[in-house]
């Protein structure tokens, strides 16, 4: 009975937070447009640089333009999606920060709402908004890849859906913990800018992890965000191995290229399988949500301490 009531209350709070987010046209447009802008910037300014980089790794082997363009486009889209799952979550978390700033979160304490209900309402609302926007970005990404050179199998394309789902849950949990302590709109803008730049590097979205030194690469591999990027890379770019082989690229060159661009992640010399990556991300999400709820509970206890 209580669980049923809790679920109803969480659903009502989630709906309220989503409505508030969609009422804020500026935040909505900003969140929606930012992945598309980053994707356009990648396509316009970095596509050629990535092409040269990929070419240099192939050591004289020439691939069909569709293959290499599609591979680079897939790399770009997976990078954009890996970062957006965090940046969009920060923007979507504005509702939680605004509620703290205008005192709504304190006012709600006169009602019989349990702390975890309130906090999960924020979490699910942020996750739903972020998911909606990231899936739109994913569709735009698929269109871009299709235009440049498609190589994904239906299974791989479908696998991207749970990849984005998990990455969003992870990004939402991480951003929620950070945003919980923020007390102004300015702080959230500053923190989201810092986090999105730093996160892009440490999750391997801006620069392949395999290109770092071994020690640094292994350190970064200890961070769960890396596995979100790893999953996206695996499913977006894995299909190109066959296409490159068909274009006459030797297996060693294909493997070298895919390893060099994190399609196959390795941790202390061992390959990390996709199911391991799913497991790491899922466990991280569970831990981060538990931390988020715990922070709220401890903070509430502290504020009402005798």
């Amino acid at each position, binding site marked *: 009975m209580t669980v049923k009531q809790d679920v109803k209350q969480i659903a009502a*709070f989630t709906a*309220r937070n989503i409505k508030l987010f969609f009422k804020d046209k500026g935040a909505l447009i900003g969140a929606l447009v930012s992945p598309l802008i980053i994707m356009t910037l990648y396509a316009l300014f970095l596509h050629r640089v990535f092409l040269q980089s990929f070419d240099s790794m192939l050591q004289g082997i020439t691939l069909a333009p569709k293959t290499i363009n599609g591979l680079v486009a897939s790399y770009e889209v997976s990078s954009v999606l890996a970062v957006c799952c965090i940046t969009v979550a920060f923007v979507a978390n504005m509702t939680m920060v605004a509620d703290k700033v205008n005192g709504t979160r*304190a006012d709600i*304490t*006169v009602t*019989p709402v349990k702390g975890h209900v309130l906090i999960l309402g924020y979490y699910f609302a942020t996750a739903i908004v972020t998911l909606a926007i990231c899936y739109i970005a994913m569709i735009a990404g698929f269109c871009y890849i299709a235009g440049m050179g498609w190589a994904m199998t239906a299974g791989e394309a479908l696998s991207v859906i749970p990849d984005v789902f998990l990455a969003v849950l992870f990004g939402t949990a991480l951003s929620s913990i950070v945003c919980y302590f923020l007390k102004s709109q300015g702080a959230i803008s500053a923190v989201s800018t810092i986090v999105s730049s730093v996160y892009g590097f440490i999750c391997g979205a801006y620069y392949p992890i395999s290109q770092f030194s071994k020690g640094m690469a292994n350190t970064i591999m200890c961070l769960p965000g890396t596995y979100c990027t790893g999953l996206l890379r695996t499913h977006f770019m894995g299909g190109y191995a066959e296409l490159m082989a068909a274009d006459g690229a030797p297996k060693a060159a294909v493997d070298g290229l895919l390893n060099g661009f994190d399609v196959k992640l390795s941790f202390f010399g061992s390959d990390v399988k996709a199911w391991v990556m799913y497991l790491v991300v899922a466990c991280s999400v569970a831990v981060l949500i538990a931390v988020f709820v715990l922070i709220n509970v401890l903070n509430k206890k502290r504020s009402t301490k005798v």
Partner: protein
Amino acid sequence: MIELKNVEKYFKKPVRGKGVWGMFKSLFSRKYTVVKAVDGVSFTVHDGESVGYIGANGAGKSTTIKMMSGILTPTGGEILIDGKHPYKSKERNAVLKTIGVVFGQKTQLWYDLPLTETYELLRYIYDVPDDEYKKRLNELIELLDMKSFMDAPVRTLSLGQRMRADLAAAMLHNPKTLFLDEPTIGLDVLVKRNLVDAIKKLKAEYNTTLILTTHAMSDIELLCERVIILDAGKVLFDGSLEEVKHMFGDTRDVKVTCKTVIDGESVKNHFGDAVIKHAAEDGGHSVTFTIDGTKLTTGELLNYMFANYEVADVKISETGIEQVVEKIYEKDRAQGDGTNGEGDARE
């Protein structure tokens, strides 16, 4: 039933150093001042009672309301609402389901969403069954005349509309007890009157226990039969409205208008200290006598006036609770600087 037993609430306020050096120093060694907001308050409110909880700014009224509604935890003493502690996490939700709170200077409505959205959410929070919710919401819309702005976002409502909406939000789950913390603050006379009438109707309809804090004594006179006066965190008086008036001076103003000029001084001399003061208007044709009701009746004064003057008009007004409280505050100001709490700096 609400029981407060020797309730205390102390706040620890950091004392910031002056200037840059002071700020820097306070990073390493901070001094605190302990402010006693509520200092040993005890009272009992029975079901269905209407209690006016009054006092000067900083007397501890809102702090007590916040403790009774579970927002703050008392430093000492005990608060029981129907035998449960509102500030204990295991009992809190059970208590909060039976109370409603309206803070005049805050709102529990969502600013950017229409009222219906807030009410819908409150329905889930308080677990109000669908049929009961619809019935009750319709009753409240009717009673508080809210039909015209139900679908408007809260930020577009006037203060009077918002207060009515807040009152409806607090009453939606049919609470046994309603705490009203300065509900008429900032409202004009007409809107205030309408809101007070609505509260009266709600109370009559649902027999809700009412605890009202306000600076508008007319609200207390209209809504409450019992008054608790708080001063510097301590209960100064707890009794009926009539008692408070009597205790702090049963004075009344009698305004007499005559065709001839009234010699106020001779009237005062005749009755001695039973006439506290007199003020002449209209060139001495009208004089307002403030009399001590315990020493002189209005009839005795009027008999004298009718016997000595050609009385054209008489107006009698009893001293309002407003003046009574004003007296208490004046007394308080005369004793000290009127501030509450005792500060005691500690490292």
